[in-house]
């Protein structure tokens, strides 16, 4: 059954898409473009996290492991072997993907909070390992990547707009994958296992395999983000690559925006990234304590008042106004949201 979009929705979407594509041409302030790039990037990371944490409810707080692995893979390939980051980004994704297999095999034996703790531990261990690796990966000081001027084939651009478009494409890929998953048999299986793992197995859901598979996808995408980030800031070190903040933000934007929804991470990032950028510029310099305090407060507020996230509020408001559910396609998550009022 196809999703029927009303003409007004099609027009609205086209307008938004157009605006997104033209944005860097219109906005000239580099600070603003930088925020947009960060929004796109962290929305993408959030989307990657959301597949595992939102739909399947495996709440990982260790996604920085894959971010870092992706970043380091492409950087090592670039600096030591001269390989273009366009290849490196895929290689990084694959390395991240492969790493998710043993990490998943270990961590999925635990459930709920203990799974989260195990993922934190694995990410920290990776950071420690890279802090010790001198010969292979530059150790604690990290390295800058050589500035090759404007070399598109090496993923380096003079124009910030180019990075914007790469990030936009990454986000598009993430959303496309999520959308496909949502509408397919996998969507049902993911949400079911997220709701009740044992009951899901009773109706034939191969829970271990589905968890493994969604983790592969999630890790791969997160790895891509890592490479992009290094290419954008021209620098890598274990603290940046495996930074706990990445793990936190990946989960945070999804929870705040709408956990387990397609657009949730995007909505969440739109709220969080500009806010934190503004707060940081207000207080001058990076008082890291402020950003995280802000995130913590927002997270607590969301959990206490609207655990389903902003999208839950928006969808609820839409339904109250129009008396109808948006879309109407029989996808697992659409089917799940139909008629819900999220007051539980």
């Amino acid at each position, binding site marked *: 059954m196809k999703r029927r979009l009303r003409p007004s929705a099609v027009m609205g979407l086209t307008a938004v898409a157009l605006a997104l594509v033209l944005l860097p041409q219109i906005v000239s302030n580099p600070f603003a473009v930088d925020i947009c790039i960060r929004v796109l990037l962290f929305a993408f990371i959030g989307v990657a996290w959301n597949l595992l944490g939102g739909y399947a409810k495996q709440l990982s707080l260790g996604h920085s492991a894959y971010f870092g692995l992706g970043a380091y893979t492409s950087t090592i390939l670039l600096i030591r072997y001269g390989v273009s980051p366009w290849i490196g980004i895929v290689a990084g994704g694959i390395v991240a993907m492969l790493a998710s297999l043993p990490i998943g095999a270990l961590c999925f034996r635990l459930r709920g909070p203990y799974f989260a703790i195990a993922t934190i531990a694995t990410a920290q261990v990776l950071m420690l390992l890279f802090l010790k690796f001198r010969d292979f990966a530059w150790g604690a000081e990290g390295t800058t990547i050589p500035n090759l001027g404007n070399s598109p084939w090496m993923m380096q651009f003079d124009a910030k707009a180019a990075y914007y478009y790469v990030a936009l494409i990454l986000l598009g890929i993430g959303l496309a994958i999520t959308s496909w998953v949502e509408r397919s048999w996998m969507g*049902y299986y993911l*949400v*079911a296992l997220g709701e009740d793992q*044992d*009951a899901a197995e009773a*109706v*034939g859901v191969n*829970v271990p395999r589905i968890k493994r598979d969604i983790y592969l996808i999630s890790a791969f995408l997160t790895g891509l983000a890592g490479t992009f980030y290094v290419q954008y800031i021209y620098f890598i070190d274990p603290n940046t690559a495996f930074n706990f903040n990445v793990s936190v933000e990946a989960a945070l934007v999804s929870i705040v925006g709408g956990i387990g929804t397609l657009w949730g991470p995007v909505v969440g990032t739109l709220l969080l990234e500009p806010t934190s950028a503004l707060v940081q510029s207000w207080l001058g310099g990076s008082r890291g304590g402020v950003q995280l305090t802000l995130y913590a407060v927002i997270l607590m507020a969301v959990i206490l008042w609207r655990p389903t996230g902003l999208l839950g509020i928006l969808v609820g408001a839409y339904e109250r106004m129009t008396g109808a559910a948006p879309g109407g396609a029989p996808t697992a998550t659409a089917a799940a949201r139909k008629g819900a009022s999220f007051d539980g």
Partner: protein
Amino acid sequence: MGEVLAVQGLSKRFGGLRAVQDLSFSVGEGQTLALIGPNGAGKTTCFNLITGYYRPDAGSVRAFGRDLVGLRPHAVCAHGLARTFQVARPFGKMTVLANVMTGALLRDRTLQVAHRRACEAIEFVGLSDKEGRLACDLTAIDQRRLELARALATAPRLLLLDEVIAGLNSAETDQAVALVGQLSRRGVTIVIVEHVMRAVMAIAQHIVVLDHGRKIAEGGPKEVAGDPTVISAYLGSSYSHA
């Protein structure tokens, strides 16, 4: 040969507690077997052992010509055994339809086909008018219906029902008994765990009585009802009907 489920020498202990001891029984094709016994007799444990949620310490479970021990629950389900849980476990934030579709997707990943099969199951249990409702918003009874529909959607050849009737009023009990009867006439082999004797007598052709994890009696309804060991097991414990 007609024997679809054969449990042999099944044993399971949890620490010091022997939940199931040397249990053996078999179920013929199309039969309905009831597992009864006082609380704590090991009936649900038995289900968990058969469907792969627990691993037995000893013994074997064979169904449809295959050894089930060591298989994960989803593989057991794929092999044709579906079960319901004693306390219903719906996927709360999914609609009734989505719940049942999850079961239907086992046999065919195409959404259209699964949708059709799901609707059939939903209609069979009488939940068609609540198709779009969230499972967590259903009454307990309807959640049980949903549980059954979801299990049926996996197209099982053997159905394990854990206390589907307990707590229902008289009319609801009759409905449930009728449903089970219909399933049986369709050729589904059924094993039920039940406390409600009226239903057991009406549904089951063969009864196995457990007490403290052991089989203490077996036979047709009349035999078992008159068996003194059975009577003392029930009267001798602090168990009482709802």
